[in-house]
């Protein structure tokens, strides 16, 4: 795991020797009333890496992801994704950015229950304006890559949890996003299914060169990441930083 631990440069200023990070945040603060959920987060996420975000419940990791994805607007600080400062974008423009450059995988997959697997995967492609035939064809290819070809015509209710989660991964990858935010993607699965899903996801993202920000409570899941950060009380873990200094 030591190889995956943050370095000081990862946490703060990126090294000039390293390429431009895909996601770059400085001094992120977010408050909900009297509660300060984020208290000055500085972070770089590099292209193609898999970053695990860990921390106890209520530590602020979901808020962090919301800010990184442009779902929440920080009260202070900046978020730059793929060279675009999210603070300078309107809500519609941020939605457009999410559609074009970001994919999501949720704990329960959150597939549309009325659509079969191939239509679920084709949906974001259609949202981006692709024709139905081409979208269906590409969706079929992604299902194939995730070994779900035989599930293409099934609706989520007729699949196992692991299968549904792999369909959700196919959906997230179908648009070739720059980054995927995965929030406890294996949280609802047993250990065998969880391992299958993670393996499938990481294999697919590495082939596609996609960046992944993975929220998890589970150290075994975090172990699949290239590195991990720990959020505690709205800040990156001081212990981690100190140990890396």
């Amino acid at each position, binding site marked *: 795991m030591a190889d995956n631990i943050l370095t000081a440069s990862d946490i703060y200023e990126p090294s000039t020797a390293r390429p431009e990070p895909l996601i770059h945040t400085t001094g992120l603060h977010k408050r909900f009333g009297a509660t300060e959920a984020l208290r000055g987060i500085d972070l770089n996420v590099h292209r193609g890496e898999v970053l695990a975000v860990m921390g106890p419940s209520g530590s602020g990791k*979901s808020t962090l*992801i*919301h800010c990184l*994805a442009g*779902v*929440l607007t920080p009260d202070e600080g900046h978020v730059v994704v793929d060279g675009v400062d999210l603070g300078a974008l309107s*809500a*519609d423009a941020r*939605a*457009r*950015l*999410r*559609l*074009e450059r*970001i994919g*999501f995988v*949720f*704990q*329960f997959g*959150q597939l*549309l*229950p*009325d*659509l079969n697997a191939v*239509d679920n995967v*084709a*949906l*974001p492609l*259609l*949202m981006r304006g692709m*024709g*139905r035939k081409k979208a269906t064809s590409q969706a079929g290819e992604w299902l194939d890559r995730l070994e779900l070809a035989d599930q293409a015509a099934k*609706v*989520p*209710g007729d699949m196992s949890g692991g299968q549904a989660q792999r369909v959700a991964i196919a959906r997230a990858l179908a648009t070739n996003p720059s980054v995927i935010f995965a*929030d*406890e993607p294996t949280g609802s699965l047993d250990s065998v299914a969880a391992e299958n899903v993670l393996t499938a996801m990481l294999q697919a993202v590495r082939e596609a060169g996609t960046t992944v920000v993975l*929220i998890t409570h589970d150290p075994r899941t975090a172990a699949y990441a290239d590195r991990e950060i720990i959020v505690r009380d709205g800040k990156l873990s001081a212990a981690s930083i100190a140990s890396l200094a």
Partner: protein
Amino acid sequence: MRPSAARLLLFSNAASYRRLAGIVAGVAAAVAMLLILLGTYLHLPDREDRGAWVSQEVTAGTQGYDGAVALPDQGASVILTRVGVDYLDLTPIDVVRVAATHDTQVAFPAGLTPPGSGEYYASPAMAALIASTPPDELGDRYGTMISELPASTLKGSSQLAVLAGAEWDALAALPGTTAVDQFATRGRHDDSTTYRLVIAIGSIALLVPIALLIGIVSQLGAAERRERFATVRLIGAGRRGIAALSGLEMGLASLAGALAGIGLMYTLRPAAALIKISGSESFLADLTPSPGWMAIAVLGVALLGGSAAWWRTYRDDVGALGASRERAEKRATVARLIPLALGLGAFSVATLGQSWLDSTLFTLGLLGGFALTAFGIVVAGPWVTKVLAAFFARHARTAPSLVAAGRLSRHPRATFRSVAGLVVAVYLVSMFAGLTSFLSSTAKPREVTGMISLDALVAPLSHEADAAGLVSLLEAMPGVSSAVLVYGGDSTSGYADLMTAKDAAAVGFAPPAGAETVAVNMSTALYDAADYSPPEPPSRVDAIGAAAPYQVIAVTEGDDASIERARTAMIASGSVAGPPYTRANLADAGNLTTVNELGVMAYIGMGIAVAISALALTVATITAALDRKRTFGLLRLSGMPVRALRRVITTEAAVPLSVTLLGSAGLGFFVAWLMIEALGNGEKMGAPDGRYWIAIALSLALGAAAIASSFGMVRRSTEVTSTRFE
């Protein structure tokens, strides 16, 4: 289950209260309308019985007509009566003239004292009309008013009726006068049979959308309820216990709604009383069922509501894990077309077999056919929606259409149910518009050379009329351009009516050039042919000879005051045997007042049904959107703009609505065509009148408004900041 636990389970949050409030409101509306319709249905024969005294057909006793049969001598045991329909413009007035001895033994309606010659009783509405109209245009026709007719002698509150006294000899001289030894106290009930049929059909048409609304409201927060029921099952409650709880909840809500419905009925009665039945608005009492019927309705609705909820919950059997997976609907199969086919079959048998079916079977066929067809539309709708959705899904090109197609395919029953009320309402009004469309193709009176002028009044003369004096009187009146006499000719010649050529030209005929005297056909000159074929032209005759005048025609300047003054003068002269009439009066009398009244009722019913259905659509759309709040929220989170979500919601309602609306309109017109053809009167179905298109436009507008009303909620409830990563 202990009451405290039940209370916790059923009334745990604001949504539970909203749902119950919706059920109570829906049931209250249904019960209020049901009670008004029931009251009207039950009291229809009473209305006719109260008004029986103005109906000539049911008077009894010795009858003398046109002098052919001698009337009995003047005496206390009989009275003379003469019934007629007078007009003020196009408004008909029931007029009964009576002649009685001062010691008559004949009981008058409601124990009234017989009016003397020149005296009259008037209904309250008639008295008000007389008071608000110049005497020389109305009041002078009848003499001096004694008092108002009591309600117990009237069909309804707006009935225009006069009971006027006359001299025995003068009345005896008029053709059509009848001698009777009692007034009729029982009507023929023809009208009440017709209206009862219509009310029964109307009840079905109104209660279907209300039932759908209640069904939709009861599904509010269904997903959340399933979760709660599943949790309770998990901690030990049985299937029957959950069903009983659900039944109790619905039964109590229905009971509260039904009781509120009684209050609502009393509130709505004044508005409902304004709808005309048999030519009159209703007394409030005629819309109110007895307390016994109210009790039956209240308990019946509560029992029905509770039982239905019990059965549905028991059948659904929410298990301990019931909420973990999305519940698929039962597959809609082609068998859903069976009730519709049966309904059309019943209609066909009733209409085609009208000549040999007895009236009970005919009525049952019509009612059963209507109920089955309306029910059949509701049952068949999901199957039609499913077929449409499959087609739509294959051809979806955009994300919103794909999401909508998925929903329609998987939930055809739920999606159709939201629009079913509108579809049934359109079916009803289309059928009625089709049935009455022949009226718009019926000839309307218009000014044509060769026909009596539209500005002319025609009246039969009494046997002892001073015809010349009447003509002089009329010609001297302001607003009367000419007054002429029509003579009874030789019927063997084919023409019974003779006039001078000059007089004929004055009233609208085109006499042959050089003719002094002509024979005319008054019948074709008064009634427009359906195809506007030209009336028979006058023909030259040698002379009027010994023929006696039997009709008088006064041509006026056409304004209402001139016509009514001339009409009043003719009646007041005592020389006319019956109320004077214009061609417009004749056309109106033949123009199916009942059908027009039914038309008004149908469109009012349609309006109510559409409003209820629009409300149901609103609730259903919002419910469907709320149930998918998380799905929609995640779609927005993934970058789907709100306008795309609006398109999803619009498509989900618009697809079943547009197609089934077209289908139900077509079905309505088909049924109407079937009935018109079966009646075999040579009537043809024409284009529906403007009201139909207004009703359709209203349906579509309310449907669109119902869908649009959910947009704000969808935007708010799917804000990305409120969507959690769960």
